[in-house]
């Protein structure tokens, strides 16, 4: 039981923190459903170097005991290492085009995920999580994260007032959120839900990204801005605490009892080149 943090949103979506749930009860409810959980991750250009560590750590901590399909989207299939997986888990390479800038690559993810769901993964998985590849699992990530529409609170903004959230503030962007509005600042590195729901909101986000493109504007934090706009008007049914989306460069505050998924320290300039 956690009394130091908010554990339910005003629209009654649970906010998942260590201490709020019992893994055994959740496993006994979810395991019998024979679910397959999908994971999408984009490894473009130099980002393929993160795949090995991501997968190895996922094998140790992500949805243990469940069937998992990893979909690694890459422009460079030959550089993807061969990682040994547990039974019931498989790994699929999805070849995609490389765009000229890292911002463009980031924003095209919505379109790529949406297309892939329509063509392939909707038949293969029940739930889908879209994760950044330059991250590592350190602790259990289990069925407590499953929900219709799942978003995660960005580690840099869970303790700051709403006025400081880096929402897109230019009113002519489709990702615009006016002052005084907004529930949380959600991170673009983790989102997911029922495959059908992920299909719907990736489509919407891609549409708003294209609208901005047509108007010659790019949102402050690329698709993360669009995701935040979307989740403001279509609230997630479950919110993951920053335990599920941490940044190791930050000192660990008292509210964070367990870090489950976190960024890999890297030289941004070098790797985005």
């Amino acid at each position, binding site marked *: *039981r956690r*009394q130091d943090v908010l*554990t*339910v949103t*005003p*629209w*009654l*979506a*649970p906010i*998942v923190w260590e201490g*709020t*749930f*019992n893994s055994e*009860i*959740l496993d006994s*409810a979810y395991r019998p459903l024979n679910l397959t959980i999908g994971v999408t991750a984009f490894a473009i250009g130099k980002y393929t170097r993160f795949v090995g560590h991501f997968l190895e750590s996922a094998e140790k901590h992500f949805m243990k005991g469940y069937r998992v399909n990893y979909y690694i989207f890459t422009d460079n299939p030959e550089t993807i290492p061969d990682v040994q997986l547990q039974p019931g888990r498989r790994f699929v390479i999805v070849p995609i085009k490389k765009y000229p800038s890292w911002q463009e690559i980031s924003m095209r993810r919505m379109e790529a995920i949406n297309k892939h769901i329509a063509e392939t993964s909707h038949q293969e998985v029940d739930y889908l999580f879209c994760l950044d590849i330059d991250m590592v699992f350190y602790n259990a990530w289990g069925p*407590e994260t499953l929900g219709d529409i799942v978003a995660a609170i960005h580690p840099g903004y869970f303790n700051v007032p709403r006025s400081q959230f880096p929402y897109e503030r230019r009113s002519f962007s489709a990702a615009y959120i006016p002052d005084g509005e907004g529930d949380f600042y959600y991170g673009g590195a983790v989102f997911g839900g029922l495959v059908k729901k992920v299909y719907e909101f990736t489509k919407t986000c891609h549409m708003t990204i294209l609208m901005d493109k047509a108007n010659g504007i790019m949102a402050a934090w690329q698709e993360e801005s669009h995701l935040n706009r979307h989740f403001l008007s279509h*609230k997630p049914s*479950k919110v993951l605490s920053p335990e599920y989306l941490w940044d190791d460069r930050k000192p660990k505050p008292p509210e964070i009892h367990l870090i489950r998924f976190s960024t890999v320290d890297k030289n941004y300039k070098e790797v985005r080149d």
Partner: protein
Amino acid sequence: RRDVLVLTPWLAPIIWEGTFNRDILNAQYMRKNLVTGVVTFAVKKYWFFIEGFMSSANKYFLAGHQVNFYLFTDNPEQISHLQMAPENHLFVITVQNHSQWQDISMSRMDIISRYIRSQFQYEVDYLYSIDIDVQLFEHIGVEIIDTLVGTISSWQYTAHRESKSYETRTESQAAIPKGEGDFYYTASFYGGSVAEVYKLTRACFKGVMEDRENDIEARWHDESHLNKYLLYHKPTRLLSPEYYWDEEL
């Protein structure tokens, strides 16, 4: 709310005043164009409660949204003219009366499941069974709408697991093994999606029939069976005792 438990160990929210924003929830509910039904029974002397229940429910239950009230009674003539809000509908359904009130209460499960199958599934998305001897004094809104919803009994809220009123005799289908049980739910207010309520009422009635064949009756009748069901099929949302408070407490 820091003074109460607002989330179960399986991450179902427990609804207390102050934990939710009804405006946000109303906006979400209206977007989906949903219809909610209420099932209630007024058999034998319980006809007396009809007016009180219906006028308060009409005013306070999901106000502003379409609600279908299904009133089962053996005494349709006793129902005086009830003025319903424009978005609400009242359907009066005549039933036979049984000799003992336990029989009536147990056969409710059967009646509800049969009517879901033949009628309600085509008319409502969500369905709630509420005891007639209840008056609403405050708004009960869309915060109650979810797939499978149980209400924590106010009598049992502070009780420890060992002293909770679960059926413990293993001969009964409603038996809950010692040391188990999450909460004690009241049979006076439960509901959910029409599909889930169908499954629940079928399962409970099946338990009731099996007990009858084995010449045993659960301690708290249909409520014991309800508690067994909700232990093994966890509710997706719980209503705190604020939602069904027994005045005698």
